[in-house]
C-alpha cells in the first residue's frame, strides 16, 4: 500500500478512537456528575429519596453516642441545614471548617451517608486559637 495512504488511514483510526473516547468521557462526566448544592439551594430543591452533595461551612456540632448532628451554612447566605451523620468523622472536622457531605432528606433533617463526609484541611490550623493566646 502507498505509505502516505497508510499514514492517512492510521491517522483517521487514531483520531476516530480519540473522538470516541472524548465523547464517552464528556457524556459520562455530565451524566455521572452530581450537583454540589449549598444549604439554601438544598432547602429549596430537596426531594425525599434523592441524594445531594452538600457543600458549606460547619456552624454547630453535637454528639449523641455515635450520631453526629451538625449544621452546614451557605457561605454566601445566612441559611443553614441540620445534618445527622453516622460514620467516621475526618480529623480536621470542626466548627468553621468547610465540608462536603452526601445527604438525603428525611423528615425535617438531612441524613449524611456514612463515609461521605470530607473536610477541607486548612493551612493555618488553630489560627483563631493562636490569636487568642
Amino acid at each position, binding site marked *: 500500500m502507498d505509505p502516505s495512504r497508510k499514514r492517512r488511514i492510521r491517522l483517521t483510526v487514531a483520531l476516530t478512537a480519540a473522538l470516541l473516547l472524548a465523547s464517552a*468521557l464528556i457524556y459520562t462526566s455530565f451524566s455521572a456528575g*452530581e450537583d*454540589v448544592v449549598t444549604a439554601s439551594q438544598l432547602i429549596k430543591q430537596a426531594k425525599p429519596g434523592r441524594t445531594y452533595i452538600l457543600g458549606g461551612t460547619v456552624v454547630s456540632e453535637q454528639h449523641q453516642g*455515635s450520631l453526629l448532628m451538625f449544621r452546614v451554612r451557605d457561605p454566601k447566605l445566612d441559611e443553614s441545614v441540620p445534618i445527622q451523620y453516622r460514620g*467516621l468523622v475526618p480529623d480536621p472536622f470542626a466548627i468553621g471548617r468547610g465540608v462536603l457531605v452526601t445527604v438525603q432528606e428525611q423528615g425535617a433533617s438531612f441524613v449524611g451517608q456514612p463515609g461521605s463526609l470530607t473536610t477541607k484541611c486548612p*493551612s*493555618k490550623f488553630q*489560627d483563631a486559637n493562636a490569636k487568642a*493566646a
Partner: protein
Amino acid sequence: MATVGRALLILGLVVAVYGIFAALYGARTGQRAWIDSSRRAMYAIAGLMTFAFLIIEVAFLRSDFSYNIVAGASSTTTPTFYKAAAVWSTQQGSLLLWVFLLSLWSSLALFLTRRRVREIVPYATAILLGFCSFFIGLTILFANPFSTSRNPPAEGAGLDPLLRHTTMMIHPPMVYTGYTMLTIPFAFALGALITGRLSAEWIQVTRRFALAAWLCLGIGVLLGARWSYTELGWGGYWAWDPVENAALMPWLLSTAFLHSIMIQEKRGMLKVWNVSLILATGTMAIIGTFLVRSGILSSIHAFVSDPTLNISFVVLITLMVVSSVTMVIRRRAELRSESQLDSLFSREAVFMLQNLVLVALTAVIFWLTFFPLISEAVTGTEQSIGPPTFRPFVVPLALILVLLSGVGPIIAWRRVTVANLRRNFTFPVVVALVTLVVLLVAASGVEAHLFALLMFCFAAFALAAVAQEFWRGVRARRAMTHEAAPMALFSLVRRNRRRYGGYTVHAGLAVLLIGVAGSSSFQHQRYATLKPGQSVRIDGYNIRYAKPTATPSAQEISFGAVLNVSKGGHHVTTLHTSYGIFPSQDPSLGVVGRFFNSGSVESRIGLDAGATHDIWTVVNAANVPPLQGYITKGDQKFAGLLASISKLPAAAQPRALNTLFALRDQFITELTHRFVTHPWPVQFLLIVSPLVSWLWFGGIIIAFGGLIALWPIPVLARRRVRSAAYAARLARELA
C-alpha cells in the same frame, strides 16, 4: 533576620531579571561573556534562596513566633523533626521551597551544560530565570514568608495534626523536586524550538533530569499514597483527589516522554510528539503547583485557598501553552521524522501505542479533575465527580498499559517475525494462561471481578516477559564470560543500566497494579459500634474489642482500643488504634475543655500488614461526649477557683495557681481514665484489604529500577554507547 530575608528575595528578583536580560542579549549578540554571566546569575539566585530558606528553617527550629508563619504552623511543643518540616506546611514556605529547589536544579543543569548545546543554553537559562522571577515575585507580593508581627504570641498554634507524619519530611520536597526538575527539559525544549537546533542533543542533555524528575515525582506520589493510607479521612491510598491527580498527571506524561525519546534517539522519529510531550509535562508541573497552592478545586488535601495567586498562575500557564503551541507550529517542517514506522507490529509501534494510552489516561484524569469548574462554566452549577466516574476509563487503560509493559521489552524493533513471536512470547503467554487457570480454580468468586482477573493475568505476562529478558541476558553473559549467575546478573545490569533499569520498572508496575486490583476489588469494609468484650466478624475474621486504653499527657490526651483478631479460633494479631486530642491555647474553651474540645485531633490506625492482606482499623474520634457533663462541671468549678485566686494578694497568687493547675491535671487524668473504668460503646471502621503490600512493594521496585536507570554508566560503556549512537546516526544519514 526577617529584614535580611526580605532583602534576599528582592535581590533574588533583581538578579533573575538581570539574568534574563543577559541571557537574551548574549544569545542575540553571540557574546559568551553575557551568557556566562546569566548562568552565574542562576548560581547567585541558588545561593540567595538557600540563605533565605535557612533563615526560615532556623526561625522554625528556634520557635521564633515573631514570624507569622512560625506562629501559625509551629509551637514550642512541636517535635524538632516536625518543626523543620513545618516550613512547607504553609503557603509562603511552600513557595519558597519551590523557588529554592528550582534554583538548585537549574544551577546544576546549567553547570552540566556549560560546554554543550551552546545555542540552546541562553534561551533555556532565560526561561528558567523567568520561572525563578515568577515564584520569587509571588513570595514578595502575595506570600511573604518573612512577614513579622510586632506583638508575637507567647505560643504558636502548632502543626496541623494531620501533617504530623514521618512522610511529611520527605513527600512534599520529593513532589516539588519532581515539579521543579520538569521545568528543565521544558526550558531546553523551548530553547531548541527557538534556535531550530532540533536534533536529539537537547534530549540527551536533559534526559537525566526528566528521569530524575520522574523518579522523585513517583516516590512523592507513593509516599503521599502511604500517608493517605495511614491517615483517617484522606480516602485510603488513592481517592482521585485533585491534589493527588495533580502529581500523577505530569508523572504519566513524563513516563510517556521517557519511552518516546528512545524512538527519536534510535530512529529519528516522533520529534513533534516528543517536544510537545515535554512541553505539556512542564506545563502540567506548573498546573500541579497551581492546583495545590490556589485551592480552586475542592480538595481534602488542598491546604490553602488563595484566590490572589489564581490570576498569576493562569497568566503563567497561558504563556507556557501559547509559546509552546506557537513554537511547535512554527518549527513543524524541521520536526519532520527522519524515518517511517515500518510495521504496526514492532517495538516502535508498541511504544507509540503505550504513549497514546498514557496521554489518554492523562487527558481523562485532567478532564475529570477540572470537571467541577467545566460544569460550572457550562451549566452554571458546580458538579462533583467521585472515584466511580474515573474507574470505567482508568481501569481499561491501566490494563492495556500493563499488557504493553510486558510486550514492549520482548517485541522486535522495526518488524516482528513469526520466529520472534514464537521465541519471545511463548513463555509469558503460557505463564499468563496458567495464572488464569489457577485463579479460576483456586480463588472462588474471582470470575465475578473481570477486570481484576485480567489485571492479574496481564501482570503475570509482564513479569514473565521481564524475567525472561533477565534470564536470557544472564545466560548470554555467562556463555561469554563464564561468570557465576549472580555476578553475571550484576554485570549485565551494570553495563546496561537504562535497559535493565527500565525492565525493573516494568516489573514493579506489574506488582503495583496487582496490589491495586486486589485491594480495590476484594476489599471488605464495615462499621461496628462495640463495647469492651464484644466481637464482630469481617471476611472470616473475628475481631474482638479487648480493652480500652487512655493516656493523658501535657501534649496530648489519647483514647484507644486494643482489638484481638482471630480466625478459625486461632489468634491472628492484636491491633491498637487510638485518637489523640491536642490541647488548645484558646481560654474561651474552658480550663478543662481546652484539653478535650480543641477540635485538634489525630486518629491513629491499627494495622496488621501482610503479604496477602492488611487488617486495618480505626476508632471514631467523635467519642468524648460521655465526658462532656464532667468537662462542663470542671470548667465551672475551676473558673470559680480562678476568680477567687484573682482576688488574693499578688504574692500569694502563684502558689495558689500552681495548686489549682495540679488539681486540674489530676482531674483531667481521672476524667481520661473514665474511658477505661466506665467504658462506653465506641465506633470502629474495620477493613480487610488483600494485596495492599504488593502496591508498596511494587512502588519500591519501580523506584529501584528508576535509580538503576538514573545511575551514571561507566566511562567505557558510555564511550561505547556514544560510538553506537554515532554509527546509528551515520547509517541513517547515509541511508
